[in-house]
């Protein structure tokens, strides 16, 4: 081990900056103290360089290892085995490596770790911004490698950066090609990634306050693009999520048995599907890109028919993905706006959709019965309830007053204020009380249109709850009591309805949405989101399937032969590229033009057996050639004089002079050839 090795100042600077930049995106996800330790280690390493501190001793290093072990155990206990605990453990090891970085070898370890840590950051976020940031950091790490391999005396930051940039740009085409064609091999194992674990969107339970909680969040839920058609009107944008049909007096729940539990049930369901629905056949196609929710269910306009693999439908026409959605999911749907479902209601479904707690809310039950008696039909009754909401001073707010034990009574007769879940819950209760099957639907309502890329954005604050009521001869009919209270919520959007509500978007104080009141900012926000959308659609969601499609488009039908040929071809291109690079760095071919021409002189003379010998100087060579072939003496003399002039007389020359002299050299070379050809013939 070379004790005296000192990491060059410039290289160390680059190194520490790289480490800092690598840690920054991770620090958002990791516990604060990891970031603090990282900064301490970076400063420590810098102080070691200046000589103010020493490398850690043996005891210190053992202490650090023990500390890391304890931390990792406690991390796994707190966070579970998963990305977060693994990432913070990796980060700890990474920054501790810094303070014992002595040798060149150690720096290479740290540099490799930098790249690994960047990949970890990619697990958390694959946004455009993140990608650009990582590209920049990769360039800087490359700069660190360059600085490491340059002379320690050179401190040329701009030069290093320029070179790193050049290397980065050179790597881009290869990266793109590899991204497009590299086989997507399924991982052997997977770390459960809890990205966006905070907000998971709509859940399969609905208690008062759940959805209004979402209303405070400005996070994106999903983006939708309609194919070849204009999007439906805002008031028709009911993104149906889950059907909640079990009510215990406080919380609406989804009945688990309504999902398909076995293969036979699925087959049975498929048989019945066509019989249960009536549509006019005019559907619209659209694509949804859903942000990760950690839940299996997905959203679509009722009544949707899945067009993607891995998307299934439940008995209640809810949509499910095959597995939890831990990363952005793109799926295609076909929806029929004009539809009727379940014209004949099966008994067990009917009874489930009529279930109510036997006690409580006496006042409401009485109210319902009286109102039902005053109208002729179930349909009229439903509208009468809506009219009740409309007529009285009901108020649409994110911050409703707290409700007592008899929530429905309290809401209906005393507080009169609530968010959509209050209205939906109360409405369903009032329906069920008088024997009309009804249920709560949770999902999203509305969207923001992005005119730049012609798609729609649905945010968490678009979360909504509404009802479906079963009417004789009509099947399930959608009712939205919120629309009766706050028509602008449905017609225009939740932003308009809650503009003055202080609780709206309170979680994202400086959210784009709030700033969006300034029109230019809003434009910018939409443009940025449009870029992000395109990025997600074209890059992030580029998977095996998309790859397959691309291949099919490029090469027609995929056969094993073609795939093999393609892979071989690509491997060939890569190997060729590497080979060319190697040849280019091979010494001997990087001569300056003067030397190249001089070597050609030797090659020409080789034809008559007078090649320049190894170690022979130009004048000696000239003399030897002149002695052997006196007729070449003149031209050889001129060539040698010019070569010596160009190669050994370091006089400053302008570009033009240089060109002129090279031209003269070439002319002389031509003359030599001319003189040579009769000699060569003679020799033959």
């Amino acid at each position, binding site marked *: 081990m070379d004790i005296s090795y000192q990491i060059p100042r410039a290289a160390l600077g680059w190194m520490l900056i790289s480490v800092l930049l690598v840690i920054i995106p991770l620090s958002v996800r990791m516990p604060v103290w990891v970031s603090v330790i990282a900064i301490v280690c970076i400063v420590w390493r810098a102080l070691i360089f200046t000589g103010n501190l020493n490398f850690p001793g043996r005891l210190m290093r053992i202490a650090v290892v023990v500390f890391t072990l304890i931390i990792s155990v406690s991390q796994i206990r707190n966070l579970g085995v998963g990305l977060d605990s693994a990432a913070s453990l990796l980060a700890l090891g990474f920054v501790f490596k810094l303070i014992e970085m002595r040798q060149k070898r150690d720096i290479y370890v740290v540099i490799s770790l930098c790249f690994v840590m960047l990949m970890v950051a990619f697990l958390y976020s694959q946004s455009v911004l993140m990608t650009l940031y990582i590209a920049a950091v990769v360039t800087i790490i490359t700069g660190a490698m360059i600085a490491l391999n340059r002379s320690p005396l050179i401190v040329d930051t701009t030069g290093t950066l320029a070179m790193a940039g050049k290397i980065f740009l050179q790597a881009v085409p290869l990266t793109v090609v590899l991204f497009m064609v590299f086989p997507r091999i399924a991982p052997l194992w997977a770390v459960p990634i809890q990205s966006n674990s905070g907000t998971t969107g709509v859940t399969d339970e609905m208690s008062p306050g759940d959805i209004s909680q979402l209303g405070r969040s400005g996070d994106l839920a999903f983006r939708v693009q309609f194919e070849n058609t204009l999007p439906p009107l805002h008031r028709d944008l009911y993104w149906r999520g889950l059907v909640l049909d079990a009510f215990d007096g406080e919380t609406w729940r989804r009945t688990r048995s309504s999902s398909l539990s076995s293969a036979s049930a699925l087959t049975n369901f498929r048989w019945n599907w066509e019989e249960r629905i009536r549509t006019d056949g005019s559907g619209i196609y659209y694509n949804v890109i859903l942000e990760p929710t950690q839940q299996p269910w997905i959203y679509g306009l009722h009544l949707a028919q899945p067009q993607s693999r891995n998307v299934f439908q439940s008995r209640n026409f809810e949509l499910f993905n095959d597995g939890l959605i831990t990363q952005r999911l793109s799926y295609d749907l076909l929806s029929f706006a004009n539809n009727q479902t379940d014209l004949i209601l099966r008994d067990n479904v009917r009874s489930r959709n009529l279930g109510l707690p036997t006690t409580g809310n006496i006042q409401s039950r009485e109210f319902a019965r009286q109102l039902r008696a005053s109208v002729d039909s179930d349909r009229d009754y439903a509208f009468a309830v809506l009219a009740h909401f409309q007529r009285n001073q009901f108020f649409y707010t994110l911050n409703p007053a707290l409700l007592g034990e008899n929530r429905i009574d309290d809401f209906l007769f005393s507080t009169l204020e609530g968010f959509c879940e209050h209205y939906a819950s109360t409405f369903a209760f009032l329906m069920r009380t008088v024997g009309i099957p009804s249920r709560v639907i949770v999902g999203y309502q509305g969207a923001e249109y992005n005119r730049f890329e012609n798609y729609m954005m649905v945010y968490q604050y678009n979360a909504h709850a509404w009802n479906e009521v079963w009417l004789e001869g009509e099947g399930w009919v959608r009712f939205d009591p919120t629309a009766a209270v706050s028509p602008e919520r449905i017609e225009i959007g939740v932003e308009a309805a809650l503009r003055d509500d202080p609780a709206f978007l309170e979680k994202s104080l400086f959210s784009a949405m709030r700033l969006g009141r300034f029109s230019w900012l809003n434009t910018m926000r939409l443009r940025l989101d449009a870029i992000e959308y395109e990025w997600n659609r074209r890059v992030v969601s580029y998977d095996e399937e998309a790859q397959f499609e691309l291949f099919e488009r490029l090469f027609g039908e995929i056969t094993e032969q073609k795939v093999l040929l393609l892979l071989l071809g690509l491997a060939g291109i890569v190997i060729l590229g590497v080979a060319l690079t190697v040849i280019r760095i091979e*010494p*001997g071919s990087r*001569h300056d033009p003067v*030397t190249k021409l*001089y*070597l050609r002189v030797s090659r020409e003379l080789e034809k008559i057996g007078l090649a320049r*010998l*190894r*170690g*022979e*100087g*130009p*004048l*000696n060579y000239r003399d030897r050639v002149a002695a052997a072939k006196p007729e070449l003496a003149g031209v050889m003399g001129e060539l040698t004089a010019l070569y*010596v002039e160009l*190669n*050994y*007389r*370091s*006089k400053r020359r302008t570009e033009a002079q240089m060109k002129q002299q090279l031209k003269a050299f070439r002319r002389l070379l031509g003359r030599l050839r001319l003189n040579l050809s009769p000699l060569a013939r003679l020799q033959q």
Partner: protein
Amino acid sequence: MFSLNLNKQAEIPADIVESDFSLQVGAAVTEVSKALLGKEHQIRLALCCLFAGGHLLIEDLPGMGKTTLSYALAKALGLGYNRIQFTSDLLPADILGISIFDQNTHEFLFHPGPIFSQLVLADEINRTTPKTQSALLEAMEERQVTIEGETRVLPEPFFVIATQNPVTLAAGTYPLPESQLDRFLMRLHLGYPDQRAERELLEMNTERDKIASVKQCLSTADVLNFRKHSARVNASDSLLDYVQRLIAYTRGTDEFHFGLSPRGSLAVMRAAKTWALMCGRNHVIPEDVQTILPAVAEHRLRANSDEDGHTGASLVQRLLNAVDIIE
């Protein structure tokens, strides 16, 4: 190939361009040749060594003209000349000088030794003890001597031409160690004269006559001028590359016991530049390096199997054949 080059060494080296310097050199070579017949190349190398400000070690058998060469050089260049005959009982004071008490003035009076001269011939340097050798070698390096606490500067220019009989030959000698050999810029062998020169030599009367016929053709100022200008001779990047490759080869190849030291590589450049200047050029070409390299590097190199330091010559030839002027 270089055996061919070796044979040519006796001839006038590479192209000589006419310039003040090359004319002066030509005149000096002619003068010295009057005393030492048929040894133009060696005379040129000796001149090169002196013009480069280095010291010269001449190693050859007795009677080959070592002393004649140094004396003729001193005469042709018009330098003050002193000769010290090294014997086993020579003491440092015999070289440097001594203070003697003067009875009349009642003071110690310093009597400078033979070292206080522009050109010192240290004859048979390996005959004396290392103690005395090092006194001389110190003076060579420092160009000053300290006697009885007083530092005295040696004259300018100051050259030492040391001669020694081949180490293999001489019994009762103290061979110079590598560290001291390194202080000589060049080591020359004179070799037997060729037939023509031998004949001419035989036709002459006495040796004294020859040296008497050598006339001064350069002045001390000329010598210093050479040294000044040789520093300004250009060495292009491709030439420096070549020299570096040569040096790297000596350091990185197994057959060399040790490579050229930085002092050695500096010596190569210094001699090559002076040689180029002597040929009337103000830029160095590979031939310059190749010409001076045997003289400059032979005594600094040694093969792994070498015991007495006489493999340098073949090593240098092998080096020149192995390293191409173009990478």
